[in-house]
């Protein structure tokens, strides 16, 4: 179903990123172009307590906020750094933002790393003197809103791996609807013993490297990130005279409604979100020049995503560049979709395709497909690109980004 009565265009004017391959846009972009892998044995958490103990950690020394306790509020510290970078990148003074400036945040588990100490002990031993022991994700949203001085809406999304992408999609809709002039949207996730334990128990974690779309892929590697973008309406962008990274051309959302863990093997729900995103952007499949895949590198997710892509893009899928940046960045759940929007925005602006590193042999049935293996591809002119986020539990969000020159 296409949207009606939408008149305002929405642009990405600022980016902020905290990731295992770089803190800050410059380092992040260099890492993407170099095919840098941010995944290794865990240092910040005791790796020996886990079955595998590998993942992508942030170099916290590179963070700028000295006013946040990293032990208690690691998510907030990451998110605050990324939001401040995004605002500065957009050339915005935080003290002069519009009254309705909105914050939309996605996170799968919020400050779970700290909650493990406050909720783990048996009931009789609970440390009741902790200021805010529960720490649901909306706590991060409200603290961020307060520290950034925003007074518009604050919205929190918790739909796992799609949360950050959905925050961006909904924030864009609020601008299109005239409910806000400007929004900061994205996602944040930190590594916790609980998340690593859980995904290791599910046998979803790779024993080697994360190798999306490879015949020998054996799972995800978890990571931590914060990724936020500044979104502004077209009139405001014109008035300010800024050159945006990209236009957020459309979004599509759906559910698999099949299984709590397994994706729909035929990719029907994902394909529905893809079709909706293209329709919302007013584009046909042949207008898309690149797909930043969800590409987790698990046995079941990758073929399901490729089935969805083939059902939408048809025979052209073989020539369509499709890459997964999770082999470099790991899977940071609620932050991943937002980080991948940033990657798409940088790809559009800089004219390159980020690689699927660690790729050796095509996934069975998809031989000859272009997974942008191992090395970034430079000098590429991109018009429209797609970013997929398909969450645990079957929540799908697809975003279409366009070069600002494309109308």
């Amino acid at each position: 179903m296409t949207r009606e009565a939408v008149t305002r265009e929405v642009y990405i004017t600022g980016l902020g990123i905290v990731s295992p391959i770089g803190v800050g846009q410059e380092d992040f972009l260099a890492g993407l172009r170099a095919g840098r892998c941010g995944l290794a044995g865990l240092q910040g958490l005791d790796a020996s307590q886990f079955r595998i103990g590998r993942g992508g950690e942030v170099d916290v020394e590179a963070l700028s906020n000295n006013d946040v306790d990293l032990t208690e509020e690691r998510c907030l510290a990451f998110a605050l750094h990324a939001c401040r970078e995004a605002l500065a990148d957009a050339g915005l003074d935080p003290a002069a933002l519009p009254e309705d400036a909105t914050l939309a945040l996605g996170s799968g588990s919020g400050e779970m790393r700290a909650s493990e100490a406050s909720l783990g002990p048996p009931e009789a031993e609970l440390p009741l003197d902790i200021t805010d022991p529960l720490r649901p994700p909306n706590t991060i949203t409200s603290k961020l809103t307060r520290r950034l001085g925003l007074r518009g809406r604050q919205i929190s999304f918790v739909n796992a791996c799609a949360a950050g992408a959905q925050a961006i999609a909904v924030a864009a809709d609020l601008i299109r609807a005239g409910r806000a002039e400007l929004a900061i949207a994205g996602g944040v996730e930190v590594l916790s013993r609980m998340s690593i334990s859980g995904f290791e128990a599910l046998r979803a974690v790779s024993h080697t490297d994360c190798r999306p779309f490879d015949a020998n892929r054996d799972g995800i590697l978890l990571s931590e990130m914060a990724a936020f973008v500044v979104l502004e309406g077209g009139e405001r962008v014109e008035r300010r005279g800024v050159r945006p990274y990209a236009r957020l051309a459309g979004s599509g959302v759906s559910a698999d409604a099949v299984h709590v863990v397994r994706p729909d093997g035929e990719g029907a729900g994902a394909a529905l979100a893809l079709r909706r995103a293209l329709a919302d952007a007013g584009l046909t499949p042949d207008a898309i020049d690149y797909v930043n895949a969800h590409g987790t590198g698990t046995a079941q997710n990758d073929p399901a995503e490729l089935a969805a892509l083939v059902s939408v893009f048809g025979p052209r899928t073989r020539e369509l560049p499709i890459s997964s940046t999770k082999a470099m960045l790991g899977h940071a759940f609620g932050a991943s979709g937002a980080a991948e929007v940033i990657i798409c925005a940088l790809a559009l602006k800089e004219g390159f395709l980020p690689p699927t590193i660690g790729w050796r042999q095509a996934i069975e049935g998809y031989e000859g497909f272009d997974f942008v293996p191992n090395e970034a591809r430079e000098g590429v002119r991109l018009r429209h690109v797609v970013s997929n986020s398909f969450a645990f539990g079957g929540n799908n969000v697809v975003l279409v980004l366009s070069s600002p020159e494309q109308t």
Partner: protein
Amino acid sequence: MNANRRVVITGRGVLSPLGCDWPSFAAAVRAGDAASAGPLPGALLDDPILCYCLSNPEALAPFASGREAEPLSTLAIAAAKEAMDEAGIASEGSPLDDVGLVMNTVFGPSAAVEEYLEQLWFRGPRAGRPSRFVDTVLNMPASRAGIALRLRGSTAVLGGSSPFELALDWVRFGREHTVVAGGGEYQSPKSMRYYRALAAGSGAERALLAQAAAFIVLETRDHAEERGATPLAELLGVGAASEPQEISLPWSDDEEGCVFACAMRNALAEAAVAPEGVSSVALAAGDDAAEAGELAALRAVFGARFDSLTLLRPKRLMGEGLGAAAGLSLLATLAWLEANGETVALVNAFESGGAVTSLVLRVLPS
């Protein structure tokens, strides 16, 4: 925004301390019955933690998918299904590609999270059980509801934000012709202990928590009429603002009510309803201490009309429903309006973290 696309409510579903289906809930609201709070099952005997529990816990049994079914998922499925049944939307058969789901929950499956963390505490990360981990994922109750009810349309899981603005926009903008929207919360012993400690630390009397889920079906009026469904009420407009907080308490410290006033004015403007057109207001606050700012805002928005407004206080009847609170207030207001022959009301919601949402609601003649 397409102002011509009218959005109506065609289904209601609720499990709460006041009633575990819409008819019993509505009857209790109309009678002004208050639920009784008691110790939360599982709480330590020497430290009874009070909570408004479901009036009929057995109502969950038909929806529990297994011996250890995660209770928030079961609550959400039961309430959403009741709403869909009333709306005449079949939850069996082919997937419903054009029916979306928006669910709000603050703490999510907190009992499962606490159980998993306690296991981590005692036995370490290698002892994790996959099925129990799946239960801890915050979007799992909504995902389970979507799977059980075959909802394949746009789905969003909110963590402490009103579900109705997003659902309304999705329907108005044509992303979906129908959205099942609401929220749920199922309190767990540790979260209750913490909540009480936080409340005590604030130095004020605060409302007790409630276990509940409340959902409605929203669709365009045209779509409802085409398929022969009965529009029960219309959502005319919504307004939102925020008063960001440093800790996650579902009440406002905005004593002058500036944020509430902003949200209410925005909602009235979007609904094109003058203050004179509103007869009732459902308050977001749950007790005297929390009400001050909201009442100040009402005086500012309604002026001399304030004294003639009927003020509804749903949380005083059944406690603070957190993720379910906005839905409980909306449904309680519907029950009140229907019983008293009134038509237009404002429904305020205050989410933990500081987000305020105000809805303008009109009951349609049957």
